[in-house]
């Protein structure tokens, strides 16, 4: 296909972009830059003339070179692209550690009320009392569910929450003159953000090995604790889908050693309304509103990662926070006292606060507890139905909200966890999380969430068992070839990394059409 100098195809040859993947309803969509050009626009605006008087000599000379589409073209481009995606709304999305639960549309409607969507973070606080009240209410729910003394709402995601919590710990140590503590203990089953966060703040990461049951021994923690240890970062329920049975002892040991207990709360969905982490002795824990409290994942974000804090850490919370006195609510925006300062501009993810609170009010405390129980029920149901065909690294006992398998059952089949995952795609399911946690060989981490019906779970299990049987029956080619029914076959990741092509480049090898 030849291109004019905007990269817009000009010939009339069959470009073949109408369909792909064996289906007429799943299009093969060209790039924005292949269909748009710098003259077309889908936005009408008056074309005002301006002078350079106030531009200080900095008027743009470099071509913007941004492709535009008229509105009908743009709408179609993005609708067609979207159809190539799997989503919660189109099927079960059992990604372990991700809590791909139902995202209520009421949340979306509420966040679009002008009183929330159309308010500025720096308006006078007298004009945003409803927003501050909402933040206060959200904080109340989070603190009540966790039995903690404070919550820092502003972290932008889980990892940012980790950073915030660990900064509070660092600040607390500094306040005690304990800044020499430079080691953070992290179990080997931890999510990558945990060690990355610790390192990001300059800490040395000391790894704690999981025991044979997939959990952390208090003894192992005690052995690793010492005067140089600032904190432990422990996930609970952990990334193997198990509640840490010795967590109370661990917390005690950590505190006795003068360290703090950071809990990764990404898996809070398993226990909300059932267990309050504050009762376990944690000092800080982030909560992924985009997991536990149903704010949409949006193809990778945005999220929100509020961090609840114990009495000990509360004084170190970052600004801003809402302050409730007698009169109107105030927003404390400047760090005073021991507060650790500001970790983001403005007031955090208000859009997520609105959604999360809407979700909480819909469920109520009773509904949240039921949701946690159902999440655990569903994971155990999947575990029960798939065991013993699927191999369980840590026994057949109950799990929390996710069921973990290893690839032992695929031994000698020539089928890998990756192959197995791709074959699931062909059966209409999004794969589970693969190869995480790292402590399990060929891990398959299945988190159904509470949103799946028994019927869907049964269908999922049927497919999983059928695939396992097929793998064991020697039908490896089905797996290594998979997926064959998705919009794309397997993609060459090595090539992508070796010859990075990270943006569209105007095809240079094609002779420019005369204009």
């Amino acid at each position, binding site marked *: 296909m030849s291109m004019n100098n905007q990269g817009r195809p000009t010939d009339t040859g069959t470009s073949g972009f109408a369909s792909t993947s064996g289906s007429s309803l799943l299009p093969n969509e060209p790039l924005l830059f292949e269909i748009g050009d710098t003259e*077309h*626009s889908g936005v009408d605006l008056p074309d005002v003339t301006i002078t350079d008087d106030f531009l200080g000599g900095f008027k743009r000379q470099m071509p913007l070179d941004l492709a535009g589409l008229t509105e009908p073209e743009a709408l179609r481009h993005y609708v067609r692209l979207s159809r190539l995606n799997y989503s919660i709304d189109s099927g079960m999305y059992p990604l372990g550690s991700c809590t791909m639960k139902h995202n209520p549309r009421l949340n979306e409607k509420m966040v679009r009320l002008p009183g929330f969507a159309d308010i500025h973070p720096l308006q006078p606080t007298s004009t945003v009392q409803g927003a501050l009240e909402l933040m206060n209410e959200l904080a109340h729910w989070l603190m009540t569910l966790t039995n903690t003394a404070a919550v820092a709402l502003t972290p932008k995601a889980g990892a940012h929450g980790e950073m915030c919590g660990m900064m509070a710990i660092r600040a607390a140590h500094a306040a005690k003159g304990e800044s020499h503590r430079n080691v953070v203990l992290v179990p080997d089953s931890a999510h990558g953000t945990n060690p990355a966060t610790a390192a990001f703040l300059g800490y040395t990461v000391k790894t704690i090995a999981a025991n044979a049951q997939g959990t952390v021994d208090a003894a192992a923690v005690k052995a690793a604790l010492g005067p140089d240890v600032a904190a432990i970062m422990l996930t609970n329920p952990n990334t193997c889908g198990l509640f840490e049975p010795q967590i109370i002892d661990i917390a005690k040991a950590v505190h006795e050693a003068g360290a703090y207990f950071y809990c990764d709360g990404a898996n809070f969905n398993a226990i909300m309304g059932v267990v309050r982490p504050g009762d376990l002795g944690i000092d800080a824990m982030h909560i992924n509103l985009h997991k536990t409290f149903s704010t949409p994942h949006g193809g990778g974000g945005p999220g929100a990662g509020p961090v609840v804090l114990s009495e000990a850490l509360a004084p170190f919370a970052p600004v801003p926070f809402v302050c409730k006195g007698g009169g109107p609510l105030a927003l404390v925006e400047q760090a005073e006292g021991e507060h650790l300062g500001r970790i983001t501009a403005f007031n955090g993810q208000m859009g997520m606060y609105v959604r999360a609170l809407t979700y909480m009010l819909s469920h109520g405390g009773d509904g949240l507890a039921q949701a946690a129980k159902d999440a655990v029920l569903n994971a155990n149901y999947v575990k029960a139905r798939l065991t013993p065909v699927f191999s369980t690294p840590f026994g057949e006992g109950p799990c929390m909200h996710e069921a973990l398998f290893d690839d032992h059952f695929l031994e000698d089949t020539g089928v890998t966890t990756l192959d197995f995952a791709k074959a699931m795609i062909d059966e209409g399911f999004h794969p589970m999380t693969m190869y995480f946690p790292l402590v399990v060989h060929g891990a398959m981490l299945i988190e159904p969430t509470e949103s799946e019906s028994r019927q869907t779970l049964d269908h999922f299990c049927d497919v999983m068992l059928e695939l396992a049987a097929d793998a064991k029956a020697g039908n490896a080619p089905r797996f290594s070839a998979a997926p064959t029914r998705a919009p794309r076959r397997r993609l060459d990741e090595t090539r992508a990394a070796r010859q990075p092509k990270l943006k569209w480049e105007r095809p240079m090898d094609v002779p420019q059409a005369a204009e």
Partner: protein
Amino acid sequence: MRYLPHSNAERAEMLAVIGAASAEALFATVPASARLSKPVDLPTHSPEFLVEAHMRALASKNHAAADGPFFVGAGAYRHHVPATVDHLIQRSEWLTAYTPYQPEVSQGTLQMLFEFQTQVAHLTGMEVANASMYDGSTATAEAVLMARRLTRKDKIVLSGGLHPHYRDVVTTYLDHSPSLIALPASPEGQGDILNQIDDDTAAIVIQTPDFFGHLRNVEKAAEAAHAKGALLIVVVTEVVSLGLIEAPGALGADIVVCEGQSIGNPLTFGGPYVGLMATKKEFLRQMPGRLCGETVDADGNRGFVLTLSTREQHIRREKATSNICTNSGLCALAFSTHMGLLGEAGLTRLARLNHSRAVRLAKALGAVPEVELLNKSFFNEMTIRLPVPAAPVVELLAKAGVLAGVPVSRLIPDDPAVANLIVLAATELTTDEDIDMLGECLHAALEDRS
């Protein structure tokens, strides 16, 4: 409860399949002392229409920008978001997909990210861009850390024109490191950042248009920085300006970070927004965040994947370039669809329109007695000095329904040099009537005083 598919009968059947005596039995591994013995002390579940009523009541206690003349900017801007953009981002397949870790069934998100990266690169004039950061402020902090890694030097100098929140965030990220020099606020566009650069300097950070609205000289800063082996980080908080103001990449910037909210994303009290980050190819491997790259599938068809993940936490753990995981995917989509609708032609018109509204605003402010306009240059934002402290005046005008901008003292308290200043922005949504009303109210407020 409407969100929970199981009936009690189904729960019982499922427990039977599991072989558990009760739902509680599944929590057997939880220490008994840690299990709540009674329900949490929170309201119980509620019908949708009552939840909606509650949220509407809260929303109605806020003064929405559309409710009156509105001039608040300072890092977040009220622009019109086309209905198409908001419609698209609510589509199930965009809204409820995860990070595209399974590329075969995520080509929509991946291709969009590839297009987004291209748009950001073109806009900033840089070679490569990532798939988004949380927002402009955290992206700035990440850029600073990236510059330290790249240069293996420590010293960072922040311009007095940098948004105070950004300055605060960098300060927090660097844990108040003594090698961080944050210059005092420069409301007149003055600044001695170039004198601060020495051989230990990893990077200098300048913002343009700066916090006070002035357009800053990127080229000179780049030359000065490069002369000492330092990097230049350019921050843009009003990304619409790039439709009219020279691309930092064309002037020698090494890393460009922007707050992308202005394109496609509503104000929403400060978030979620979308951080843009672009740099030179040579710096790629120290860049934080996700990257989407082009490749082919087993049939040779073009496709896209997340790539160069060896920079990232899920592969490299404590050796990662950043701990960032979840980013601003859906806000990046909003940005990309809005930018795809605008195109060069639309963005150029939008930028010009913003500037012309600001010129109108500047003239009106200049005509108010006792009000001094500090800017010789600006894009769509400017700073005025009142003869009195600004905050009470802004509060007074708010009572009258006019949101007159941000008193600088709110972000930089206890500094007499800025106590009388207001930063005001105009956008395509600012009408002549809004401006005239502001002028009148300001005039009246200042007169009343005497």
